[in-house]
């Protein structure tokens, strides 16, 4: 039984300009122990979706079942109790600015009715986990972005949640800090077995920590599955788009765009898995077919700890060997996908 079951969830918002469908019939299962990525461009509905998991946003239609409890059937009080099992961290940290680091971490503990002494003891333990024990007396304004997020993580873990929701948790951080926060999340997932749901618009974040991913567009999940699977065989346009924007650097965040110098010709994206990296496939193919293959982009990316080579090749227009060359690559165990003109146009 999945720990989070999102069944046919829709959410409509009333705005001045009429009704907006933020979510349209979304169905997702998130298994216990997963680090589940939900990725999409801004406005895709991913933040709304994650808020449905703790019912901060109540779905207009559909049901959300968390730990076998249908959230819509819970009373106000039961819902608050359930929320204690679901930690959440945010893009802008959302710490109490007038309270010290220690008091911030104590906040959820007081909600649970812990005594001051108990709460403090636990808060120090949590700050130790996130590596900020020595800053307990500091105020959030005295901390860096990464430190603030660590405090937020400590605070989210205070109620011993089984689920941690991360809403663009690294989007306001620089690349190094992002990596360290992601490493911390991965560690928390391993050590405490907490299921983590990661909302992001950066493919690099998904690659680094998520074992499964759902891709959203216009309030719908267009594709979901294991991260490796989607990296190797992106089926949807959005997935390809996101993969192309991913510049291969690890969580650098900026969408480095390569100029699209050559407009015609067939473009193909190939992915090397570990065992295909030994043979000089491209060189051999050029020798075999005597065609001037153009390498438009090549990168190595870390997908869930495994190095994957990614390359975008262009076969000159007018070539009669396109199909044969594609077959040649497939025969050598490469994952391959043809990119149409419109898809490459400007996007990567």
């Amino acid at each position: 039984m999945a720990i989070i079951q999102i069944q046919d969830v829709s959410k409509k918002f009333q705005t001045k300009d009429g009704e907006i469908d933020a979510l349209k019939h979304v169905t997702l299962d998130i298994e216990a122990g997963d680090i589940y990525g939900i990725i999409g461009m801004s406005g895709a509905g991913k933040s709304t979706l994650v808020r449905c998991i703790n019912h901060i946003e109540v779905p207009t239609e559909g049901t959300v079942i968390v730990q076998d409890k249908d959230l819509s059937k819970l009373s106000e009080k039961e819902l608050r109790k359930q929320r204690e099992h679901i930690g959440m961290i945010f893009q802008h940290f959302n710490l109490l600015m007038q309270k010290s680091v220690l008091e911030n971490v104590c906040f959820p503990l007081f909600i649970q009715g812990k005594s001051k002494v108990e709460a403090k003891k636990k808060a120090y333990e949590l700050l130790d986990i996130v590596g900020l024990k020595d800053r307990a007396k500091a105020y959030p304004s005295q901390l860096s972005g990464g430190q603030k997020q660590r405090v937020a993580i400590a605070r989210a873990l205070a109620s011993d949640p089984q689920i941690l929701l991360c809403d663009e948790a690294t989007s306001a951080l620089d690349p190094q800090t992002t990596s360290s926060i992601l490493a911390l999340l991965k560690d928390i997932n391993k050590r405490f077995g907490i299921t983590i749901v990661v909302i992001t618009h950066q493919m690099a974040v998904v690659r680094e920590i998520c074992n499964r991913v759902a891709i959203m567009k216009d309030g719908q999940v267009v594709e979901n599955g294991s991260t490796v699977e989607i990296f190797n065989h992106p089926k949807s346009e959005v997935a390809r788009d996101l993969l192309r924007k991913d510049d291969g650097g690890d969580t650098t965040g900026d969408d480095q765009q390569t100029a699209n110098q050559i407009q015609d010709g067939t473009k193909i994206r190939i992915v090397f898995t570990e065992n295909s990296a030994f043979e000089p496939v491209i060189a051999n193919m050029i020798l075999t077919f005597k065609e001037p293959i153009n390498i438009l982009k090549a990168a190595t990316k870390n997908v869930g700890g495994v190095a994957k080579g990614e390359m975008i090749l262009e076969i000159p227009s007018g070539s009669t060997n396109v199909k044969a060359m594609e077959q040649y690559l497939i025969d050598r165990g490469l994952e391959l996908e043809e990119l149409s003109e419109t898809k490459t146009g400007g996007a990567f």
Partner: protein
Amino acid sequence: MWTEQVRSMIGTGILETLYMTVVSTVFGYLFGLPMGILLCITDKEGLKPNKVIYKILDVIANIVRSIPFLILLILLIPFTRLLLGKSYGSTATIVPLTAAAIPFIARMVESSLKEVDYGVIEAAKAMGASNSRIIFKVLLVEARTSLITGATIAIGTILGYSAMAGAVGGGGLGDIAVRYGYYRYQTDIMLVTVALLIVIVQVFQSVGMFVANRLDRRK
């Protein structure tokens, strides 16, 4: 002219002014703070939106605030008499002062609370905090600096109103300024009372800002 009598009169005036201002501010907050909190949470985007309650409080606040204080003072004479048995003197002035202060303070509180970052409220919700906990442990705490600044402004305004009450026998420094400066052409006494009012406002303002800054952890 600086007889013992005048000096003691001015001394009493200072005390009466402080008495009226402080007591009215306290009563003003006693009612204005809850009203401000209610305005904030029943608003469309608030914690517990409630159109009816919001509208009622909103209208009350607007009506009272749009009546000039001098008129309110006169309008409330029967009510003051009913409550205290007389309608002149500094204690009686506290009634209209409080009535004027409540909606003013409520609006200040409302706007201070609305300044609190929605993200922090959302985080508290996600942690399973109840609305009352959010109000007392998040909203009022995070808005602390702004609330104190608001109180400083409120106390200055109430002090100004209390001086106005002097026109209808309200007691305090304003009363002295009107009686001696206006009716008896003793400009010097008037100037002294005005100077004293300025000093009092200045002191309240400085203390308020000092406390507000002292308690602000954002810098």
